[in-house]
């Protein structure tokens, strides 16, 4: 899978309350959650995002609660993937489980400017800053994690596995 879009850049320790405030958690609909994604940092974030855009952040992205609503909100806002210097452990797990591709790649974050175009090859882990013409490498995921992301998360992946067995 190739992701390509404009970069939206954020700082370190972006927590799950910032990604999606608790008052919206009564919904589990990605589109609905997406409307409020990161609104405390940028009230118009969701309306400015074009589908496919890429979120870039510093260290410890997604710290805080274990809510799966956080990666769902990012996905629902139209973001195709997240590249950060590092992720909080539970966010990492939740993102993969709901099918949001995320990559740890400090040098790619270092160089990224908001509005640059970034391309990510989810299979090889190759990250290209198209605007700067520079290439970076993130650790590629094993086949089964790539498949979980590609089919849209763990629940869909389960269906695929079950059908194969039948």
């Amino acid at each position, binding site marked *: 899978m190739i992701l390509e879009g404009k970069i939206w850049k954020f700082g370190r320790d972006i927590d799950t309350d910032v990604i999606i405030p608790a008052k919206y958690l009564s919904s589990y609909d990605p589109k609905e959650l997406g409307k409020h994604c990161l609104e405390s940092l940028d009230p118009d974030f969701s309306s400015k995002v074009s589908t496919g855009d890429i979120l870039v952040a510093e260290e410890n992205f997604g710290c805080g609660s274990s809510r799966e609503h956080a990666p769902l909100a990012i996905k629902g806002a139209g973001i195709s993937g997240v590249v950060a210097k590092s992720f909080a452990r539970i966010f990492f797990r939740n993102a993969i489980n709901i099918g949001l591709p995320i990559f740890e790649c400090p040098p790619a974050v270092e160089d990224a400017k908001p509005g640059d175009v970034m391309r990510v090859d989810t299979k090889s882990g190759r990250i290209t800053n198209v605007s700067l013409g520079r290439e970076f490498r993130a650790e590629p995921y094993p086949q089964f994690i790539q498949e*979980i992301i590609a089919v849209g998360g763990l*629940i869909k992946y389960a*269906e695929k596995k*079950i059908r194969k067995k039948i």
Partner: protein
Amino acid sequence: MGMTITEKILAAHVGRDQVRPGEFLMLGPDLILANDITAPIAICEFNEIDRAEVFDRDKVIFVPDHFTPNKDVQAAQQSKLLREFVKEKKLTYYWEVGRGGIEHVILPDEGLVLPGQVIIGADSHTCTYGALGAFSTGVGSTDVAFAMAVGEIWLRVPATQKFIFSGKLNPWVGGKDLILFVLGQIGVDGALYKAMEFGGEALKNLSQDDRFTVTNMAIEGGAKNGIIEPDEVTLEYLRSRTDREFEVLKSDADATYEKIMTIDVSGIKPQVALPHLPSNVKPVSEIGQVLLDQVVIGSCTNGRMEDLRTTAKILKGREVDPEVRLIIIPGSQEIFEKSLEEGLIETFIKAKAVVSPPTCGPCLGGHMGVLAAGEKCLATTNRNFRGRMGDPGSEVYLSGPAVAAASAVVGRIVGPEELF
């Protein structure tokens, strides 16, 4: 190259000789666990999977323990959902209120946890089972739904940090004091994502119950799992609980550790964690004057037989301070019954403690002892985050059962030696 016990268990579950930290694995867990809070979400997600069936009725276990006996209508509905699922899917193991207790207390006691197993649970204190030499870790509800349907879980192999307890234990010092001390040293993220392996001579002298306390709180250091190599104490416990076969794995002498910390326990006195972090730890002698409104002795951390025996030793022939509410919660029905036989319950009641049926109850501010704003509570539980046991303006201190019982008698936080 040598491997740690954690790496060996994970390698065995993917049929390989070697795994390395950071690697992603897809493997088949031996037990999958959820409770009355997390099972309803997992059931919902499970039902979203088209044509899903429970992959193995012996391996999926739901325990109603957090808000049971049902604290309100919502809790009743959650338990009902769980109970109906258990019946509909004909799950092999289920303990109704009156037969069970707190998940992390009853699973080992029922002989379901064996060394070398991989156990996942939608509960962060699933790491408790490492005290029997199993790899066990908390996961999300989606992971549980997936595992129930497919029989698999994806995991990343953690790097291991080793904690060696050497020296001789001081009087009244138990597993809780050791793990609190470690947390005070490393902080709440000191072992983030890692395996915490505990060993050393002092640990070998701890009872099995005390060891459960140690691994129970690995998550409070941010760890993925806590683990102890099985020894004679563990094997004896297992023999009394099950006749199933198992293989005992141990870390190789040349295993790679990310960090090794040796702790001389002869310098450790009874410990207390102050609000609002389990790592905010001091020896009880340095706490100063903390007047208490409530003391809770119980939970998956310290609600076992040894904990209640220690409590009774201190309460025998004494009375709880009239300003303090002491709530004692045996971790399971079996422990309740044994405490009754040993005369512990009578000691508690004569000391003017209230004895609750087995439940998580006040540990997470559910029921059976919720705190008001401004109240101070000393608890043998594992978390003292702001508002954990009630109003955000309340304060929770953590300790082992000896300090908790002595403090209930005196009315402020004290070490047990003050009473002897």
